[in-house]
């Protein structure tokens, strides 16, 4: 392996590809992860730890395979994924519209912005039980919880984004006779994209959390429901299996957002990360 890294690449093309193929940090991370799994397995077997407390990785894997074979994991995943996607979609749509209104109209900003900051301080998950009371045990209460939890980071980032265009750039376009709509289209929307994607990355992960929490509060299907049901029957291996599936969903959605961002926001090497502040 060490001799391989010392090889001089034939040309710049292989250099780029070669670098991507053997990123050492990733390799080490994977090795450490596998190592931890092995330690976990060994400890559980050696000390004969009860499956009800901590199941061995092999038990989790077995439960995963079983769950997909009998179709239960898949059907519950589809329910949760639907809640996440619909809720996330509603959050994206309403946050973008709200951000445009707030940044384009002074009056809307003056009235709405203080209220939005105020509602920011409410822990959104605390609203989940209320939403169940209002909208029932079905999918709509989960969708709304997801939308509520994903809305704020998106809104704040989108507002920052629509305001991020330099005043000089606006004047430059105006000097060429651009209308307000044209300034929006040619300058403010593209300038907002890096910020919007920073918000999307946070919001998509929060959406997964929102769906699971809402299902905990009250539901008859979905991965959150499955976790509660497994816990109730002391099937901890299955709880772990569901957590693995939830992580996979989160990672996949996050990767999709990042990829879309790289494709749309091609002009910045590193997207401005304002998400950390939210």
């Amino acid at each position: 392996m060490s001799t391989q890294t010392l090889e001089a690449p034939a040309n710049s093309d292989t250099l780029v590809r070669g670098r991507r193929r053997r990123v050492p940090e990733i390799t080490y991370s994977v090795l450490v992860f596998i190592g931890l799994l092995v330690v976990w397995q060994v400890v559980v077997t050696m000390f004969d730890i009860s499956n009800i407390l901590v199941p061995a990785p092999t038990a989790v894997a077995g439960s995963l395979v079983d769950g997909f074979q009998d179709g239960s994991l898949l059907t519950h995943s589809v329910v949760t994924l639907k809640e996440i996607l619909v809720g996330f979609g509603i959050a994206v749509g309403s946050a973008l519209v709200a951000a445009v209104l707030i940044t384009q109209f002074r009056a809307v900003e003056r009235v709405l912005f203080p209220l939005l900051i105020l509602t920011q301080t409410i822990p959104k998950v605390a609203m989940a039980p209320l939403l169940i009371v209002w909208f029932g045990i079905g999918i709509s209460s989960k969708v709304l919880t997801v939308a509520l939890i994903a809305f704020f980071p998106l809104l704040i980032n989108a507002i920052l984004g629509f305001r991020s265009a330099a005043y000089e750039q606006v004047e430059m376009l105006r000097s060429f006779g651009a209308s307000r709509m044209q300034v929006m289209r040619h300058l403010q929307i593209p300038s907002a994209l890096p910020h919007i994607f920073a918000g999307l990355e946070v919001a998509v992960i929060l959406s997964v959390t929102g769906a699971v929490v809402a299902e905990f509060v009250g539901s008859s299907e979905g991965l959150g429901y499955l976790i509660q049901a497994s816990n109730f029957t002391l099937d901890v291996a299955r709880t772990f299996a569901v957590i693995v599936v939830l992580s996979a969903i989160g990672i996949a959605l996050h990767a999709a957002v990042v990829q879309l961002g790289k494709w749309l926001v091609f002009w910045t090497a590193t997207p401005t990360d304002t998400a950390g502040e939210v």
Partner: protein
Amino acid sequence: MPTSTDTDCVIRLDSLSMLYPTKSGGTVQALDDVSLSVRAGEFISIVGPSGCGKSTLLRIIMGLSRQTSGQVTFGPSDDTHRNQLGMVFQQPLLLPWRTVRKNLLTSPDLHHARDAATHAKADELLVMLGLEEFGDRYPNELSGGMQQRVGIGRALMHDPRILLMDEPFGALDAMTRDQMGLDLLKIWDQDRKTVLFVTHSIPEAVLLADRVVVMTPRPGRLADVVEVALPRPRRLENINTPEFGEIVLKIRKLLDSEHSAH
């Protein structure tokens, strides 16, 4: 209403004044009673200390700010509208998601006028600016000087009669700056547009201009207008001639006396 009798006159400023309200409730006078006639094809440099309203003057002419009092008249028949003005800013202000060519096409795109002719014009500008190999590159792949060339090209795209330049080379290093000045003169020499060129640098102002407008610090007034009767085409060597030195000295004295008067 004063009308120009001089048929050569393309821009006429009559007692322009500009007051800005300040946050503390007072006002700042940026321009005070500025009058100036600019002839067609003339290259005018405007120098003055920071905050003397040089930029404000250009912004008013461009229509980006509105004067408190006074008048801007475009001649000879006052048919000069915004589209006959082109503005170059201190920063290139290119749109990073547009290629160099598409940045040049900003103005036609805004007026839904992109066609074969504008594409041909863009190609022509790319050659003129020495950027023919960079048409499909993005601004962040270009040096500062190259970016500002694109900024100049973008202002020339719709072939304006008047070019307003607000410290266009202010953000560039000294060597690039000299070269850009000479290149600008070459471009200007091709069709002699009227140019109003704001700068901090007295030698740059003198090297480029037919007349140098010297302004006083707040409130911005015209201290004097200095004729630069040096032969064209100008070269960098002109800077070392005694005639050039005399003019620079004269402007410097004007600026100094205005400073000590305040």
